[in-house]
């Protein structure tokens, strides 16, 4: 890849007069040695997997093996259908879809890691709800996924994208940044605006610990995906309105690295602290242990 930072990414896109998504298709093709068409088709298939995961999560039984989670996406969907939600329709829809994909993941269904499985609901939630709302075709969405991938590539290589290394900020935080930047571009924002959206979003999740109850990607992961989709919409709107990330997005990524590196092990996907070690969290873990015997 010919970029290592978000500012280099934005500059390169503007120099070549390409969107971040279109630039990333070219960069990916150069890196893999396969044709741009081949790489585009693979990403489009991935988008198909995301759509199927949303459908399953909104329609089928997503009760997890532990029995702790499932069907919350359908609860939100039903509530939205009958009530004027506090968020308003489109953001509620994004939230429901994000929950749906995360619940499919928790029930060992098929998803696309974006960038991880723990954060796999956010991008599909934002993308599918916006596709329905704005009438974009799958090719547009596929370019959007390349844009999200370019942003995630920079975050991953300058910081981290796993909860075990950097806490939930590295997973859910990164996914929100990727979704926000990509959506900014899909809605007509410039590459520079898209990069601002990333920084705005990341600042909101700095410090978020990874504390899954019982070590399962369920509590609080699933609801954090729902919240994450809503936050991504908000960050895109701020950037499109001209709000800037005064601390440049690349510097925010470095802060994520600093904070994650300082995070105690018990808050990095070991279920040794946080929500996992609350009285209720411990009780759930003990129940699961008994049941396995």
């Amino acid at each position, binding site marked *: 890849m010919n970029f290592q930072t978000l500012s280099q990414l934005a500059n390169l896109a503007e120099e070549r007069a390409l969107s971040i998504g279109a630039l990333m298709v070219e960069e990916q093709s150069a890196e893999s040695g396969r044709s741009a068409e081949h790489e585009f088709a693979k*990403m489009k298939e991935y988008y198909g*997997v995301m759509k199927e995961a949303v459908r399953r999560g909104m329609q089928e039984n997503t009760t997890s093996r532990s029995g702790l989670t499932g069907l919350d996406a359908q609860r939100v969907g039903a509530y939205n259908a009958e009530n004027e939600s506090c968020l308003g329709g489109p953001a509620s829809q994004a939230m429901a879809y994000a929950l749906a994909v995360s619940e499919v993941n928790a029930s*060992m269904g098929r998803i696309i*890691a974006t960038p991880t499985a723990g954060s796999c609901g956010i991008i599909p939630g934002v993308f599918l709800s916006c596709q329905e709302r704005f009438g974009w075709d799958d090719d547009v969405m596929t370019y959007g996924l390349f844009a*999200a991938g370019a942003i995630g590539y920079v975050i991953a290589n300058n910081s981290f994208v796993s909860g075990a290394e950097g806490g939930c900020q590295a997973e859910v935080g990164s996914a929100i940044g990727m979704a926000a930047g990509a959506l900014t571009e899909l809605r007509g924002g410039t590459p520079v605006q898209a990069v601002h959206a990333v920084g705005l979003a990341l600042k909101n999740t700095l410090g978020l610990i990874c504390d899954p109850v019982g070590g399962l990607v369920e509590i609080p992961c699933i609801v954090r995906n729902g919240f994450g989709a809503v936050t991504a919409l908000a960050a895109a709107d701020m950037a499109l309105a001209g709000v800037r990330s005064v601390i440049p997005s690349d510097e925010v990524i470095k802060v994520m690295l600093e904070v994650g590196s300082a995070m105690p092990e018990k808050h990095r996907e*070991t279920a040794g602290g946080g929500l996992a070690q609350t009285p209720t969290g411990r009780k759930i873990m003990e129940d699961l242990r008994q049941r396995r015997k």
Partner: protein
Amino acid sequence: MRFKDVFSIIGPAMVGPSSSHTAGAARIGRAARQLLGEMPQKAEVIFYGSFAATYQGHGTDRAIAGGLLDFPTDDLRLPDSIGIAEQDGMDISFRQGAGLFPHPNTVRLRLAGSGGELTLTGISIGGGNIEIVEIDDFSVKLSGMYPTVLIHHMDYLGVLASVTDTMRRGQVNIGHMSLDRKNRSGAALTVLELDEMLAPELLSELEALPAVKSVKLIHLDESPKEEKGKGKTS
């Protein structure tokens, strides 16, 4: 760069629930399976760090078993893989390890098949991406992202030159390379990550080189396909 391309960020297509603890673990198991060259008859799986703390909830054990059965990350049989492995005659055990380990998500595999034994240490660095860091007590560094050739050879002058010359004549570009040896003039392992798969005749040429003991391949091809696996999802 730890993460090499767009599909290490958007992807893999996988069965949940965790990209590092499920998909990454499946890839480590699959790399080991391919190195052994057969389904192991006996597999001892030792988890460290976050893997040790949470492997049951994340299905890391099922993922390793699935990998050892050569299942890709999105194979719908993964949730049932331990039962399938046992039915197929694999004696597989899981435990938590003690002592030092290189990454919060570390697994060591000790495998035995009809044709030989293998030890391998893998780490899962996020988003389903992995690194294999040890094979048969050699330090290595490979990601499984590329077709990979592993050459066991003696540490003699010119072996590497013969290997790279074979690659040059076959028009195969080397992307990453590492070499480790047990001692001077002793056993050595060279790992090449290639931009394309090695043709069979080149493989034979490598095997025929004087100081080369064996040549093995890892190729975790994961292009999305329509329906994989016969098992139903939960």
